[in-house]
């Protein structure tokens, strides 16, 4: 695949992730959509590194590490919310508002 095609694919995946966050109500799915976004970014980095140098591939590792840390904390938070509301659907816990 050409890098431009990869870039295009990454953009599509990013948009899919974004739409997922907007339309899905399940916190875990939303979180996975965010992971999708991050992976789109990774893809873009790798593709771009074909043009501009090796650093891009290096950045991917940083992003993956951070994503892993984020996943750890994020899942913990989702568990915490499940304890309180017995649900991970965002409609069920929108008490902080207006």
């Amino acid at each position: 695949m050409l890098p431009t095609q990869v870039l295009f694919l990454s953009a599509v995946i990013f948009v899919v992730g974004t739409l997922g966050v907007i339309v899905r109500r399940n916190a875990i799915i939303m979180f996975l959509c965010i992971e999708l976004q991050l992976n789109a970014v990774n893809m873009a980095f790798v593709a771009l590194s074909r043009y501009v140098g090796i650093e891009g591939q290096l950045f991917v590792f940083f992003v993956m590490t951070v994503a892993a840390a984020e996943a750890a904390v994020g899942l913990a938070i989702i568990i915490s919310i499940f304890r309180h509301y017995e649900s991970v659907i965002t409609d069920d816990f929108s008490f902080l508002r207006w």
Partner: protein
Amino acid sequence: MSFLNQWNYFLALGPQAILTTFAIGILLFGVSRNNTSDEHQGWLLGRISLAGVIAAGIVNAGLYPFADRLSDGIVAVDRYALFSNWVLLLGSAMAILISISYVEKQRIQVPEYFALLLFATVGLMLMTASLDLMLVFIGLEIASISVYALATIDQRSPKGSEAGLKYFLLGAFSTGIFLYGVALIYGSTGSANLTEILNATVDADDTGVMLITGVIMLAVGFCFKVGVVPFHMWTPDVYQGSPMPITGYMSVAIKAGAFFTFYRIFGIYLDNIQFSWGTVFWWLALVTMIGANLVALVQNNIKRLLAYSGIAHSGYLLITVLANNTTSESGLLYYLAVYTVANMGLFAGFVLVANHAEHRVEVSDYAGLGSKQPFIAMALTVFLLSLGGFPATGGFIGKILILRGALEDNYLLLAIALVISTLISYWYYLRLAWFMWMKEQAATPNTEKAPEIEIPLALKLVLAVSLVLIVYAGIFPSQLIGFIETSLLKG
């Protein structure tokens, strides 16, 4: 001095390294004790973390001789970074002080609380000093992830969990956007290093769509963190649900850290392509100032009120990023310093009135505070006036500098909007002051039971220091301004 020598990296990141060491030490200490029922563990842990902050401060002061000599790496040791370290350390020290009695009372005196607070500060300090977008990202994430956890740290609070989840989901979402921006900038300029980006954008004519899109996505990531309309929507909810000291920490440290970096990136290194983001920032600043102040008018929860107030302040500060001349930059630094002090002082008062808990957070709960606790009420009034920009408080000087800077670059409309929105903001700041001084406490059975407020030493310290600093900064600002002028990036 150069970064060829590995030791210099340790030197450059000295304050961060010290804080990290202390944070890990606190975690280990907690593991070794496993006795969480100890009543005064909070005080002990608080003292240790405070010692860490002070040690970091000492190292920070010791870095001044090296400032500007370590400049070729991805970590800047310039006076700007050192100044932002001061503000962040001050903010976190105050957050720690107001946390101590809170965590004891709320039984969340876990070592993780203080460790995470320190880690968040480390992340922010890393971010403000970094000269590489990847490092900015890492610093930002260290801080954000710590604060996601902190917002949820009270296991028994459903609101805290909700706030934490919202912050986490939206924060991670914005991180995605931020990162995509970094990727696009990297792709179009060939590097994520700010200096190289600056060099690549000198010739502004051949700026491609890719670069501009990247810059805008980067800006949106920052706008999310500092709370700029319309990327601000998480702020009130998260502020409301989080434990009070953490709300205070978020409202000052995250905002200050993000703005220091925001300015460094956009005001200095992306200055060449201001034509691409200038108009957008102009509108964002305008909408943020006016919108946030208007919505704040109808808020009754003080934490939400402060959230919108903080958003409005982001709008004012956005002007300095836009009009990036020396006056603006001094304005930014001065304003952030003063805002940090005033806001933390306010939260110290809030923690007191809420009696180290999460009830009594409505504006009406402040009725009669002036006669019950006149000194606290007086201090809070001064902080509110400072936020509103009343003369003879530090906030006034900050606003004057921002206004002056805006007019120097001919942003007359923004200047007028700033003054008008300040006018609106007085309404809700004074409303709170009005409840404190001019209303008697309603004699409902609920409030009658409200226990006599007993002021812990740490809170007294925060209130007194903040009060003195705010008034001093308002009456004798020239020293601080002089110091700030030596810390500017645009020198």
